[in-house]
């Protein structure tokens, strides 16, 4: 029963990883930008959520109503003012700039909030659980997983059913011709980053409700996000969800064997999949 339990918990944890990964995947898909600061932006969202929730006395999930638009706005401005200038055929400049951004965010958070771990008060939801077939499932992880599914479905809808998604795909296919269609790629990229950081905001709040966080942990979340994207296959959003689930399950099974193996087990599974399926389990993107 312990094993089944850790698999179920792993699946639910995978939802969080999938949300982290979806934002990364979106940005890479649209503009070939690898956002090294993605993990730190998640922690930034968690701190913003903490501040807003504490200052206004809001429940953390209600604070999402404020944090999501704020993070989206930050994303748009960041893209238009900084990141657009780094984009060219060379993928190195955006890598370096977002790495610098990562350092800046970490240090700013350290300066403002100190290195003490913080946690958002999830209230009754944080400890509530349901007994499903003898397995105790926390309602918060369950809600987190359900949210991840909704977020992925939402992104899938935006990408394949809306004018915005058409613009994303067109710019990703061919920047010049997209520009001929009247699409200002700088604006489209701004919107993509806004959408990515809106998802980051959701991931950040859930992360902050689920575990304690401090300014330095963003990098670790970034790795999990990358691994989920790669396991699932680049450019495939549902694959990303499965990638997150595989990673979460691997980590929990590792922890079940030996508590010290949690993170290691995730990385090992990632490496094994990479070795046998270098393009991930469900690759969509070519070239």
């Amino acid at each position, binding site marked *: 029963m312990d094993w089944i339990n850790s698999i179920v918990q792993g699946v639910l944890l995978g939802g969080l990883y999938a949300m982290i990964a979806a934002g990364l995947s979106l940005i890479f898909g649209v503009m070939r930008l690898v956002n090294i600061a993605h993990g730190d932006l998640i922690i930034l969202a968690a701190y913003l959520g903490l501040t807003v929730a504490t200052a206004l006395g809001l429940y953390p999930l209600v604070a999402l109503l404020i944090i999501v638009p704020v993070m989206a706005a930050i994303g748009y401005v960041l893209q238009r003012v900084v990141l657009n200038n780094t984009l060219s055929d060379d993928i190195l400049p955006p890598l370096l700039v977002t790495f610098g951004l990562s350092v800046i965010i970490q240090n700013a958070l350290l300066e403002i909030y100190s290195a003490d771990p913080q946690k958002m008060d999830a209230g009754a939801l944080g400890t509530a659980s349901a007994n499903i077939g003898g397995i105790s499932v926390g309602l918060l992880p369950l809600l987190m997983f359900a949210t991840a599914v909704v977020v992925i479905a939402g992104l899938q809808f935006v990408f394949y059913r809306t004018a915005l998604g*058409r613009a994303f*795909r*067109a710019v990703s*296919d061919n920047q010049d*011709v997209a*520009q001929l269609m*009247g*699409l200002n*790629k700088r604006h489209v990229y701004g919107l993509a980053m806004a959408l990515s950081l809106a998802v980051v905001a959701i991931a950040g709040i859930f992360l902050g409700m689920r575990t304690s966080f401090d300014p330095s942990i963003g990098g670790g979340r970034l790795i999990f996000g990358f691994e989920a994207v790669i396991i699932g296959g680049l450019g495939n959003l549902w694959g990303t969800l499965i990638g997150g689930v595989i990673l979460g399950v691997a980590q929990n099974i590792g922890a079940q064997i030996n508590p010290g193996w949690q993170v290691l087990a995730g990385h090992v599974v990632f490496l094994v999949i990479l070795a046998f399926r270098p393009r991930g389990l469900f690759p969509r993107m070519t070239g």
Partner: protein
Amino acid sequence: MGDFELSVARLEAHYGDFQALFGIDFNVSKGEVIAIIGSNGAGKSTLMRSISGLMTNGASQVVFQGEPIGDLRADEVAARGIALVPEGRQLFPSLSVEENLIIGGQIGRTGYWSLQRVYELFPILQERRHQPSTSLSGGQQQMVAIGRALMANPELLLLDEVSLGLAPVVIKSIYEALPRIVEGGMSAVIVEQDISKALSVSTRFYCLQEGRVSLEGKSGSQTREEISRAYFGV
């Protein structure tokens, strides 16, 4: 000068150290169909890129409807009513046939052309509308590329090498659509390597050679020898 729909004046264009255009002067009146002929590397596509804003130049080097547009980005030029059918078709592979057409119209210019009118012009596209654009034949892809440009309801349509790589019978059917396209008063510039095709559909022509206008005039007024001298430079 103000009477011309499009006027290009002393246009120079560079790719790094390489100069592709050396002071091109070129005009299009409203409703005119102009042919641009010239061999490979004469600067025809560079001229199209400069007009459409994919390459930016001095503002007054390209004037459209009396306004300098030479320094505008391609999306700003497109919003003013110039649409380019790029060389090699360049459809969006991630988009279906219909999505390719819709994205051409998302610029929001209204007019005669709509999805329905494009399907009337090229009925085969309606049958194939949900297919990936890359699954079509070359000729059908070219129809999508033309339809995509028409969806923007442009006042000036630039067609860059629409016959390249297509079978003669397909080229014929595409050019047969041209009179219907321009009958509403749209101006068109056609870049074409096939001289006789270009001259048969246009009112005037310009011949480019090594980045300069080597000959211009009314289509059909020149002898074969004059044109081939301007074309090949011998």
